[in-house]
C-alpha cells in the first residue's frame, strides 16, 4: 500500500513566511492577550463568588446600566445626525463644506478631558449657556445630560466617516433612475440610497457603541463621577482602584471587555457578510464594463 503523500500546501510554505506570520501572531497575543488574561485572572483571583458579589453591588449595577444607556442613546443620536451630515457633505456643494468636513474629525484630535472641560465651562457656574439650560429645566454639569453630551461628542465621527465614502462611491445615478420612475427625493433616499449604505451605516453605529462604552475622561470631568448618578462603568473601575477594591475593578473591567469584544465580533460578522454579498456581485461589475 502506498503511503499517502503529505498535502502539497505545507510543502509550499517557505520558512520565511512561517516566521513572519508567527512573529505577528506572537506580537498580537502578547500585546492584547496578556492584558486580557491579567484582567481575567484579577477578576477571579478571589474566586467566582467574590466576582459575583462585586458585580451585584448596587453601585456596580447602576454604573453598568448607565454606561449601556449612554452608549445606545448616543448611537441613536449620532446615527440620525450623522446620516444627515453625511448626505449633506457627500451630495451637496456649499461654501464652508471643507470646514464642516474638518470639524467632523475634531473629536479624534481633541482629548476627551478637554471636551469635558469645555462642557464644564459652557454649562457650569457662570458659563455662557448656564441660564439657557436652567430655564428649560435641565442640568448639564454633574448630570446625565452632561454625560450624554460628552459621549455624543466623542463618538460623533464614526457614522459619518463610514457612510460618506460609500455615498460617494455609489453616486447619484441610481437616484436619478428612481426620479425618472416617479420617486420623490425622500422616496429615492429611502428605497435606493439607504439600502446601498445600509451596512456601512450599521458598522458606523457599532463603532459608535464601542467608543461610547469605553469613554472615561470626558464623562469624569463633566459628570464628577457621583456614585449612582454620574458614575459610569469606566469611572467605577477608576474609583474602585482608588478604594483598593481591585477585584471589583477587574470584575467590571472584564464585563466591559467582554461586551466590547462581542460588539466587535458582531461588526466583523457584518463586514464579512457584506464582502460576501459584494463578491456575489463581482460578475455583474465585469458585465457592465
Amino acid at each position, binding site marked *: 500500500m502506498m503511503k499517502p503523500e503529505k498535502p502539497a500546501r505545507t510543502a509550499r510554505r517557505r520558512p520565511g513566511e512561517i516566521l513572519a506570520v508567527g512573529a505577528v501572531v506572537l506580537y498580537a497575543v502578547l500585546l492584547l492577550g496578556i492584558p486580557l488574561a491579567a484582567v481575567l485572572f484579577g477578576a477571579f483571583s478571589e474566586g467566582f463568588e467574590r466576582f459575583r458579589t462585586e458585580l451585584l453591588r448596587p453601585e456596580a449595577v447602576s454604573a453598568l446600566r448607565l454606561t449601556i444607556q449612554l452608549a445606545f442613546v448616543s448611537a441613536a443620536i449620532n446615527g440620525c445626525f450623522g446620516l444627515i451630515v453625511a448626505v449633506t457633505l457627500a451630495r451637496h456643494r456649499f461654501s464652508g463644506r471643507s470646514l464642516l468636513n474638518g470639524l467632523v474629525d475634531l473629536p479624534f484630535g481633541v482629548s476627551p478631558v478637554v471636551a469635558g472641560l469645555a462642557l464644564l465651562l459652557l454649562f457650569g457656574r457662570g458659563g455662557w449657556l448656564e441660564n439657557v439650560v436652567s430655564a428649560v429645566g435641565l442640568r448639564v454639569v454633574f448630570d446625565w445630560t452632561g454625560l450624554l453630551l460628552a459621549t455624543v461628542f466623542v463618538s460623533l465621527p464614526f457614522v459619518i466617516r463610514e457612510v460618506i465614502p460609500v455615498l460617494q462611491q455609489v453616486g447619484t445615478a441610481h437616484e*436619478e433612475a428612481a426620479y425618472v420612475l416617479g420617486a420623490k427625493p425622500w422616496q429615492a433616499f429611502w428605497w435606493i440610497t439607504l439600502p*446601498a449604505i445600509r451596512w456601512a451605516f450599521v458598522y458606523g453605529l457599532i463603532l459608535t457603541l464601542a467608543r461610547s462604552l469605553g469613554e472615561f475622561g470626558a464623562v469624569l470631568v463633566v459628570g464628577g463621577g457621583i456614585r449612582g448618578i454620574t458614575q459610569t462603568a469606566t469611572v467605577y473601575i477608576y474609583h474602585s482602584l482608588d478604594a483598593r477594591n481591585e477585584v471589583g475593578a477587574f470584575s467590571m473591567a472584564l464585563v466591559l471587555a467582554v461586551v466590547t469584544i462581542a460588539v466587535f465580533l458582531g461588526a466583523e460578522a457584518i463586514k464579512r457578510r457584506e464582502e460576501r454579498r459584494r463578491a456575489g456581485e463581482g460578475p455583474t461589475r465585469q458585465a457592465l464594463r
Partner: protein
Amino acid sequence: MSIRLEHVLKRFGELVILQRTSLEVRDGEFFVLLGASGSGKTTLLRIIAGLEPADEGLVLLHDRDVTWAPPQERNIGMVFQNYLIFRHMTVAENIEFGLRLRGTSLTERRRRREELLDLVGLAGLDNRFPHQLSGGQQQRVALARALAYNPEVLLLDEPFGALDVQIRSSLRRNLKRIQRSLGVTTILVTHDQEEAFELADRIGILERGHLLEVGRPGDLYWRPKVSFTASFLGGGALIVGRVEQDKARFGHLSLELPDELQAEGLTRVQLMIRPEQVALLEEAPEDRSVCLGKGEVLEDWFVGAYRRVRLRLPHLPGTRQAHPVPPFGEPALLVDALLPGSLSAIASAYWAVLNGWHLLRAPDFRFLLVCFGGDTKAPHRPLLGKWLVERLEATALCLLPNEVSPLADRQEEKPESEAVSDRAESPKIELRPAGGNIAEAMSRELKRSLYDFLVLECRTDIAREDAARRFQELFGELTTALPVPTFAVVHSQEEIRHMLICTGAGEPGKEDIRLGGRLARRLGLPVTLLHVYHPQTSPEFARRHLDRAAATLQGLDLDVKLHVTAGEDVAETIVQEARRLECDLIVIGAHLEQPSWLTDQNITRRILAKAPCAVLIVPPPIELRSTAPSFLHTLPA
C-alpha cells in the same frame, strides 16, 4: 405632437454644448438621435427627461409645458447606458418599483409584472437578483421597468453600448418589435449608425451641439442636405464643383441641378457618390457622359458580402475633392466602389461609371470680423472682410467696439439677423457690439461657435508698430494659439488681386499652401509661391517640397508661379518680394518653432509690422492642435 423642443440651449460655463435646437417627434414614432461623442445627444436626452435643466427654450410633452417640471412629473420611462437596475432588489421588485410609487395594488402589480417579463422574454426570472443576470438580461429588466407604468414617452441612452455584437442585434430587433406593438413614442440616442438605420423611423444628426438634419434613414443616406451627414452616414466621395448655366459641372461631367437647388442661385455645389453608385468596368464604356474615367486600384478591403476598392482617378478639372482628401502633392480623384465578395481576382485598374449620385449644397465659410482702433468719427466698416465675405459667398459676424455709440443704439433695436442698412450692405454680415473688452469678446465668440476665418482690421490712423502691438494683445503670446486662420489687415485694404504664399525657413507647411490655394481658386487669383532659403544652405532640400506644393496648387487649377530666393532675413525678404511683385495678400503659416511672439525675432510679427498688404496667418494643421473641430472635411473649396 408627442415631443416638441423649441430653441433649447444648454451651456456649460462659457461653452455652448447644445445650440438652439428645435425638434418634433410624432406620436408613436421611433426617433433616433445620432451623433459622435460630445455632440450633445445625451445632454439633449437628459433635458427631455428632466434630469438637467435647459438654459433656454421650451420642452413640451404632449403639448404640456414641462420645461421646469422635475422628472417625476413627466411620466416618462428611461433606459440608461449602464442599466442602473437596483441591485438590492429582485427583478420583480425592480419592475414593480414604478407601479408601487403610483399606489398600484399588489395583484395588479403582479399581473403587470408577468406581462412585462413575457414581453421582454424573461419569464420566470422574477426572483433573481441583478448580479445573477447577464448583461443582456439586465438591459431587458431595465426596459421592462421603464415600461411598467405605461409612460407616454420612452427614452433610451445608448442602451446597447456595453453588450456583445450578437446580443445587441437580437435586443435591437426585440426593442423594435416591442415599440411597434406598444406604439409608445421613443427617442434613442446612439453613435452607432447601423443601429440608427435599423431602429429609426426618423433620424436626427447631431454634431457639436447642432441638430444638422432630420429625416428618414433612406433619405439621409441617399439624399443628405448637409455635408456632415453625407460623410458621417457611410462611405463615399464628396466633390465640390461649379454651377454653370443651371448645370452642375465637374470636369467633363455636366449634371442637372435638382429643383430645390436651382432656385437658390448657387455658384458652387457638392456631388456625393456612394460606393454603391459606382459601377466598375474593365472595358471603356461607350457612353462617357457619366463616366468618371479610368483609375488604378489603390486599396481593397474584404467586408464579407462585398469587396470595397478605392480607385485613383484622374483629377476632374474645376473641382476639389472634400472627402476623402487626396494626399498632398497628388491631385487626383479618390473614389470608393464595391465589387461582389465572391470575385476571385481584382483588376489593377477599372473604368468607373456613375449609376446614381446626389447633389447638395456646398458649405459656406463662416467669418468673424473684428475692427478695432481708431476714433468715433471714422466709421468701423470691415473693408477687406466685407469683400471676402461677398466674394466667397460666406456668412459673417462682425464684432464692433463699444466706442461706436450711434451704431450701438441702432443695434439694440435689431439684435440679430437683419443688417443695419448703411453699415454693411451685405445681408450676410451680422453686426454685434462687443460689449466690453474686444479681445475678450473675440475669444469668447471663437469658443462659442465654429468659424473658418478671423479677420482683424485696423484703422489707417494707427501707426504700423502700434497695430502690430494691438495684434499682439489680441493674440497673446504665441501665434500657434490661433484657433482659426486669421487675416491681419494693418491698413485700409479693399480687395485682393494677387496672392503670395510663403513657405519660409523651418518646417514647410502644407496647411498654408492648401488653404491659400483654396482661397485663390475661389477668388480667382493668380498665385506666387515663394520660398526663402538661407544663402549658406542649398535650396535643393526644399525643392521637393516646392514641387509638391506646386503640384497641389496646380491640381486646384491655379495659375502658379514659383519663386525661390536667398535671403538672410526671412521676414525682410518676404516683405521685399511682396512689394516687388505687388501682392495684396501674404499667406504664411504659424510655424511651431518660432521664438515667442514677444521677441523681435518672431517672423510673423515682423512681417505684420512691415507688410505692404494684408497677411493671412494659418495655424498648424488641425491634428496638431489640442481642440479639433470636426468640420475638417467640410471646409469649402
